[in-house]
């Protein structure tokens, strides 16, 4: 099931430049959309395609576009969210670095569909090299008449700007991104009103992920119907998965939705199995925010079916026995990985990145971090484990933006599936202090310590 939509032609040398990109069929969709289709027809094609947001939440893109306030006399904006900061996710960076025109092509079609004459790409501040690449690509497009006034003689104008963030994770949340784009501190806004009604400068705005927008060109060229046939069920199309961790071939892969997780991990075409011939221990399938799953639950669902790489299959069983596809940051852990240390690392990240405006997230993330720091360093108590579960449950759902949920899910899931490992850390502070990595089974095999 190999099919390339976004990374098509990526192996061609010089595809980063406009000339080579156009020689290989690039920007055909722009001419098609602007000259032969009305904006509503483009929106209709995207609705038919069943394309879902690739940033993590998986909200249908066509539906999101449909929410935009058409009655408003204010200008409309399209914003591309390239603030990819989720630990474990690096798919957008790869796409922008190698084939930036794929995004610009998709953005022209999308902006046309939304009736927007100004679009922004909000790039993460750390992506210094990519900002240069994007600016270069935009300059080429302006010269070729693909951006600016009267694009390809169609009478449609579009200005595209690159805006650089300053490296805050929270600015990947769409309303915080808009605040940051306006020049303010990146604090998420209270919703409603949603950005489709009151977004950038209080004007109707659509914020989409890089990968989502990169799909639009193909959908315009080949039709929504053709796109909806790729993939499985409601998870249509392909997905970029950034695989990392203890695997033989880390990297970015484009897969058709519906591939089994087992094949993705063990096939030579993809991850190529666990590094060093070790045993698979756990997988985080969608970036650090989504729940971690142990080997038996990531390969098969609780009902015994093979788990597939799709929105539905990965979330089957809810958070009891499932996870989420999320942003596609596929992190694999081998038998020697320490889940407690990993969870502490994540909670430290979320504490650092919490914007601090609402109390459950500001106080809760720092509390979770200090409790996990205690456990990791051999000063934990048994009641701390239940305390962590309780804190996570109290943050979840009580915050302004999803960062609170994202901080609590990994902690709750790690304890749900690897409770014995946390207990081992509490019961054996000496071992924990001296040995930083290694799994519970290995400690037990090599020593006489027993867990009570």
């Amino acid at each position: 099931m190999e099919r390339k939509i976004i990374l098509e032609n990526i192996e061609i040398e010089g595809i980063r430049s406009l000339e080579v990109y156009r020689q290989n069929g690039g920007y055909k969709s722009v001419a098609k959309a602007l000259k032969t289709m009305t904006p509503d027809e483009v929106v209709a094609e995207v609705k038919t395609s069943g394309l879902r947001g690739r940033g993590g939440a998986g909200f249908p893109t066509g539906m999101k576009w449909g929410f935009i306030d058409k009655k408003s006399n204010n200008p409309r904006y399209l914003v591309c969210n390239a603030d990819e900061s989720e630990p474990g996710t690096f798919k957008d960076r790869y796409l922008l670095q190698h084939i930036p025109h794929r995004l610009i092509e998709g953005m022209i079609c999308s902006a046309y569909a939304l009736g927007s004459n100004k679009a922004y790409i909000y790039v993460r501040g750390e992506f210094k090299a990519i900002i240069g690449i994007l600016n270069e690509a935009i300059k080429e497009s302006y010269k070729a008449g693909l951006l600016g006034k009267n694009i390809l003689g169609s009478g449609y104008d579009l200005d595209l700007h690159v805006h650089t963030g300053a490296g805050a994770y929270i600015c990947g949340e769409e309303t915080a991104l808009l605040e940051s784009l306006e020049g303010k501190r990146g604090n998420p806004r209270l919703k409603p009103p949603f950005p489709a009604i009151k977004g950038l400068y209080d004007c109707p705005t659509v914020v989409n992920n890089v990968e989502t927008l990169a799909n639009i060109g193909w959908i315009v060229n080949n039709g929504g119907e053709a796109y909806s046939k790729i993939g499985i069920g409601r998870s249509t199309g392909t997905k970029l998965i950034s695989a990392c961790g203890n695997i033989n071939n880390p990297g970015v892969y484009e897969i058709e939705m519906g591939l089994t997780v087992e094949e993705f991990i063990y096939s030579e075409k993809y991850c190529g199995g666990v590094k060093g011939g070790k045993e698979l221990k756990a997988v985080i399938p969608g970036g650090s925010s989504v729940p971690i799953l142990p080997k038996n639950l990531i390969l098969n669902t609780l009902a015994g079916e093979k788990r597939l790489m799709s929105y539905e299959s990965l979330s089957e069983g809810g958070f009891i026995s499932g996870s989420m596809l999320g942003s596609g940051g596929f992190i694999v852990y081998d038998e020697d990985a320490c889940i407690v240390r990993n969870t502490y690392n994540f909670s430290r990240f979320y504490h650092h990145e919490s914007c601090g405006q609402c109390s459950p997230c500001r106080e809760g993330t720092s509390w979770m971090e200090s409790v996990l720091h205690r456990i990791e360093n051999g000063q934990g108590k048994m009641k701390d484990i239940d305390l962590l579960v309780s804190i996570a449950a109290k943050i979840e759902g009580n915050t302004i933006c999803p960062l609170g949920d994202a901080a609590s899910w990994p902690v709750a899931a790690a304890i749900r599936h690897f409770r014995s490992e946390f207990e081992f850390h509490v019961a054996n502070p000496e071992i924990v202090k001296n040995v930083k990595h290694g799994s519970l089974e290995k400690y037990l095999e090599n020593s006489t310590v027993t867990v009570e």
Partner: protein
Amino acid sequence: MFKVTIDNKSIEVEQGTTILQAARLIGGDVVPPAMCYHSELKNSGGKCRTCMVRVAQGSTADPRPMPKLVASCRTEVMDGMVVENLTSPQVVDARKAVVEFLLLNHPLDCPVCDQAGECDLQNLSYENGSNESRFEEEKPQPMHTLLPLCVCS
């Protein structure tokens, strides 16, 4: 005029009124506590999360409940809205959680604090807090709390 029901008590209010303002018009136990909202401060509120309530019915036109608890100080009422404050165990639990979070890094020097006795935070924790703290880490030195309405110094 919009009709809104909070904890089984109904009132008719103007369009654009928030749930908190409507609750204050009813008065009594239905008023959720609010620590970061002040009616005179533009765009205040929504941050401390103590005023969260459950919207059991969005409006007469769209009777679906809201999926999450909402900050009553920033949510405007709709016609026929049904709101649960103390009648919802979920709200009571969430409020207890928020109070616990608010007190985590608060010095709790009430016995020697000038504000004691006239302190909204003290009242809030008296009504919704727990007698025991689960926070074992070192508390920071006395500092201003991050809530604008709390003036203990």
